[in-house]
């Protein structure tokens, strides 16, 4: 899962990145509205944390532009002013949830998880696919109740596949969702992660669809 954080306060932005990374997501940061808007429009994020009070272009305008351009990904807005006027304006501009500063990181993470889950049409915080269970709150995966030991990259690949069970996910798509923007990407490494995951998972769970990508089998 790849998240964009748009926050102009450098310290808070760093804390957000650290907090969000700690639950296994990949994070990109923008420090002003113009950069944030560009990144949100061009990169395939799974959710965005957007501060309302941004330099160069305010958060509400950025959000409206994304929605006008047809971007439907979940957006969580951060407001400092704590007025209902701002919350109504944010929701009407297309936000999916709001959080008032100062907030607890746990609450932000919980809201973010809920938004990603909702966007994927999942009702529970636990994603289940056959014998495989992914607890999005604790960022742990288990097979038939036995916890798996995964590296963060392996977890990200598995989590992305579990958010889209039964769908064909291309290597390029996986790459975009498990690496941050400034990371030196190599789609071949995805194959390495898939191979490692297959060793840890029951056989046949991750199918290769020739020429297209991978699919998490729902059958078992």
């Amino acid at each position: 899962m790849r998240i964009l954080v748009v926050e102009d306060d450098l310290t808070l932005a760093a804390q957000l990145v650290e907090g969000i990374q700690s639950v296994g997501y990949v994070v990109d940061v923008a420090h002003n509205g113009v950069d944030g808007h560009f990144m949100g429009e061009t990169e395939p994020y799974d959710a965005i944390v957007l501060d309302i009070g941004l330099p160069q272009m305010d958060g509400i305008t950025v959000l409206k532009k994304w929605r006008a351009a047809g971007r439907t990904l979940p957006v969580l807005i951060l407001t400092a002013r704590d007025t209902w006027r701002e919350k109504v304006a944010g929701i009407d501009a297309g936000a999916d949830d709001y959080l008032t500063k100062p907030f607890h990181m746990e609450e932000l993470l919980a809201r973010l998880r809920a938004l990603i889950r909702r966007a994927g049409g999942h009702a529970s915080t636990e994603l289940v696919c056959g014998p495989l269970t992914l607890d999005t709150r604790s960022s742990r995966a288990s097979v038939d109740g036995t916890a798996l030991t995964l590296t963060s990259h392996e977890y990200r690949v598995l989590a992305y596949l579990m958010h889209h069970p039964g769908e064909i996910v291309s290597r390029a798509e996986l790459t975009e969702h498990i690496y941050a923007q400034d990371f030196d990407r190599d789609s071949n490494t995805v194959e390495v992660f898939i191979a490692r995951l297959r060793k840890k998972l029951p056989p046949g769970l991750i199918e290769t669809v020739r020429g297209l990508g991978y699919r998490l089998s729902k059958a078992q």
Partner: protein
Amino acid sequence: MNLALFRNSLRIRLLVGTLFWIVISILVAGWGLGQLFHEHVEAQFDAELKNHLDQLTAQLILDEQNQAQVRLLPSDPRLNKPLSGLYWQIDRIAAAGEHPVKAVLRSRSLWDEKLTVPADAPADGEIHQHRIEGPQGVALRVVERTVTIDTHSLRLMVAANESLMTGPIADFKGHLWLALGILGMGLTLAASMQVFVGLAPLRSMQDALGRVRQGDARNMEGTFPNEIMPLVSEFNTVLAQNAAVVERARTQAGNLAHALKTPLSVLANAAHAPEKRDDDLARLVASQVDTVRKQVDYHLSRAQAAASVQIPGMRTAVEPVIRGLVRVMQRVHAERQIEFVLLPDPANLAFRGEEQDLQEMLGNLIDNASKWARSRIEIQVSDEPGKLRVRIDDDGKGIAETERDHVLKRGVRADEQVPGTGLGLAITADLARMYGGDLVLAKSSLGGLQASLILPAV
């Protein structure tokens, strides 16, 4: 006249002032004109009498027996008609060896009456005037002179009924006062109309101001005469400045919040970091940050509200605000599938106050209901005399009767497990009271809490 009424009504002041001068000038004009006419008529009357006297003097001779004779009698026919009101008479005044004789000659109009004038002795040629009582007790105006021929002194007098003079004067004065009375009424009517027409713009100014106070207008609208237009535009400037000051206060409060809250977020996050979980300092920072946040929220909301309560001319439609807030709740609580029922408000009621304040009050209440509701929230706006009531019902677990007063105190949360500042209900109650309204908590027929917000309506 009621002094307070006089002091308080510009119209009565102007009317009384004008009427005073109308009455004074009519009285002065009436008296002056009457006096002028009186003098004129009197002078003419006297001139006529003297004329007769001169004629009589010119025709007076003494015959051989030294008896006075009038050669040619004055021609005025009234002198021949008995008791006509115009008379003449010649007396002989006592002189050497002679007895005074009254009325040695007299006009035929005197018939057998005699005129008696005070026995003075005017010098030769001097004319005296007297008022005497004549035939039938009628007041007469007399002119007399003494004529001395040789040693014989004669007193010549011509008299006329005074009523011949006072009659026309009285007639004239009657007509004069009638005319002046009509003039006075005309002037009074004109003055009243002038006052009414002249003060009409004040009435429309009052109406315009009333519309501002009612919240139907933000400015005093309309065109006014040059004399009061400056007042109106000054007033509009004050209104605009007032609104600008409040807007600035709001913005500054918002900026302060923004400036404070981002560092507070940083502090709170640092204190909540997993590796600091058992650190006493981190716990202290976390709890103090929480306190600071509550204080900032509470006092900012109060400061903003206190500023806006003072602006006249505010009007906010209630339903659109509720709809906006319900959109927020439906989005934020999308998963819980709460049914928001907004019961129809046919009157389209409007709140007499700032939109942002209404948003704060209703936002806190609807947010609170959304946190606790199981599946359904009902919102109804209803009309009360001069007020409006927004009732918000939820089917949550409600608040026990003994707890209701308690939760309206600031910083108290009924349940620490549900996120929130614990200020929502207290801020709402404070805001409502600042606007002269109230917040009442009760048990809902849906099973949960019923919050009734009572606010001034437009």
